[in-house]
């Protein structure tokens, strides 16, 4: 069992959903209620990681985040460390890959809130922040929870992009999914089996928990 790989995967998942929570809420609300030209283009771009082969995505991330790219250079100047083959780069890649998993459920959740209910909140004198905190988020939270669970579990299992962008540096970019592959390559079936089973259990429990919680939320209405 590669505990440092598991820790790294959990940390990557936590960072990913910590960043995707506000990003998803902002994008989800914007797409749910905004009417603007090119909305379809934005939605398509956001959904792209769902269908793109991870290696293709990883390749472009390497190109755009690498040491020769403006973004890579900016990051290196600011943090003294390159984006690729580092944990920071992994987080950035993971956020991009998980955008559709986070934004789409949140968008659907916000779309399900009737316009009159938001208007009623405004007519009750609530400020925009109060409307968000007391009406929108409580009504959308099952969708938000689903989004976070999907992103988290998907991050744990992500393989292709992580390998392309992060390589397999122990303690820095070697996640549990890569560690499993590593062990299989080394004919260490016992370790691979243990880690695979652990990943299966974590994924099942997380998803199961989210279903239980959202079902309970629906029953309470």
């Amino acid at each position: 069992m590669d505990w440092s790989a598991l820790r790294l995967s959990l940390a990557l998942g936590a960072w990913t959903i910590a960043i995707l929570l506000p990003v998803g809420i902002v994008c989800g609300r914007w797409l749910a209620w905004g009417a603007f030209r090119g909305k379809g283009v934005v939605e398509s771009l956001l959904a792209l990681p769902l269908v793109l082969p991870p290696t293709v995505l990883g390749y472009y991330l390497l190109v755009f985040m690498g040491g020769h790219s403006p973004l890579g250079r900016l990051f290196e100047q600011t943090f003294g460390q390159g984006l690729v083959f580092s944990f920071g780069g992994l987080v950035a890649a993971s956020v991009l890959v998980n955008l559709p998993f986070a934004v789409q459920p949140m968008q659907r959740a916000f779309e399900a809130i009737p316009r009159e209910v938001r208007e009623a909140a405004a007519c009750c004198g609530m400020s925009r922040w109060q409307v968000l905190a007391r009406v929108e988020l409580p009504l959308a939270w099952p969708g938000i929870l689903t989004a976070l669970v999907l992103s988290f579990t998907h991050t744990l299992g992500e393989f292709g992009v992580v390998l392309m962008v992060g390589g397999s540096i122990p303690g820095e970019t070697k996640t549990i999914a890569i560690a499993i592959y590593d062990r299989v390559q080394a004919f260490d079936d016992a370790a691979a089996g243990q880690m695979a089973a652990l990943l299966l259990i974590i994924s099942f429990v997380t998803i199961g928990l989210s279903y239980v919680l959202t079902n309970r939320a629906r029953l309470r209405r």
Partner: protein
Amino acid sequence: MSLPTALASGADPRAGLTARLRQTSPIPLDVDLTCRAGQVLALVGPSGSGKSTILRAVAGLTRPAEGFVRCDGEVWFDAATGLARPPQHRSVGMVFQNYALFPHMDALGNVMAAMGHLPKAQRRERALSLLARVHLDGLAARHPAALSGGQQQRVAVARALARDPRVLLLDEPFSAVDRATRQRLYMELAELRRDLKMPTLLVTHDLEEASILADTLCILHRGRTLQTGTPTEVKTRPASVAVARLVDIRNIFDGVVLGHNEAKGVTLLGWQEHVFHTRLQRDIAPDTAVSWCIPASHVLLHRRDRPTRGDAENPVTGVVSDLLSLGETVRMTVALGPSGARITVPVLVHVVQRNGLEPGSTVTLTLRAEGIHLMNPAPQTPGGMHPHP
């Protein structure tokens, strides 16, 4: 029981709402309206007439291209200066058509959600007193899904009042409940409004509802005010043929003013072979072509077993062409004279039975002079009668 200040007496006599709203799209609007404190102004019109848009503009949920909204001398919206307060800063209480209650909050929570202006310690007690005011004692802990339509409507009313609003806005508040509940809610609202000191705008397409609840009706069509007046004025003295049609007056005809008899206090109206006496309306010159109407309540049926004396008011004789049962009353249609112009009269079921009325029966009607109302002729009305849509 302590009542919110909105329900207490002693409001400023200057208090009131004035609005001028103009726009061409998405829904055309061209209205001026005033609603004094304590007054209920009903905006009545068919769907698409812009009545809900007016309410939304007053609430700040939509922004018209031109005009203003002022409440108690305070400017809420002024297109000229670009000032447009958001709904949060307008002190409105709004009841939405489908109530738009917060589904995740119980009844008490819904009402308390509109009490941001009060100290926290007072909110609970106030909300409970408001719920009691709308007869929801004991249901404070229920979520909207566990309340009936009528109960949800009451929560919505309590929530609208919870903000101690300076204007109360009701957007078809009775359209989503069954008929029996609606009648009960009318009574409750009529009782409640006696204590309300703020102006109230009621949007409805139901003239009966508007007549029960409102002091003043504003008849709207395609975003324009066709007439503003008391329910009786609008229903008996419609300003135009369009209003007469919108308030469901079925008896609309074309005639000619023959002259005025000042001594008798009547205007003479020529219609087909008849000369009718009408209420003196001397502003219309003789020989003017007019449209005229008579509300069904001013058409009287003569008893067939007791022939009318000669001095009956405006008698006309015709043949019953149709009897439509409407429950306790029957809508009788009578074809008059050679033109076959039709006039409709509601009669009670027992009157139909006692007089042995059936299609083909000959009947005599009195058109009460007081009820005949003259209007500018409607454009494009051939044949001297207006088929009711």
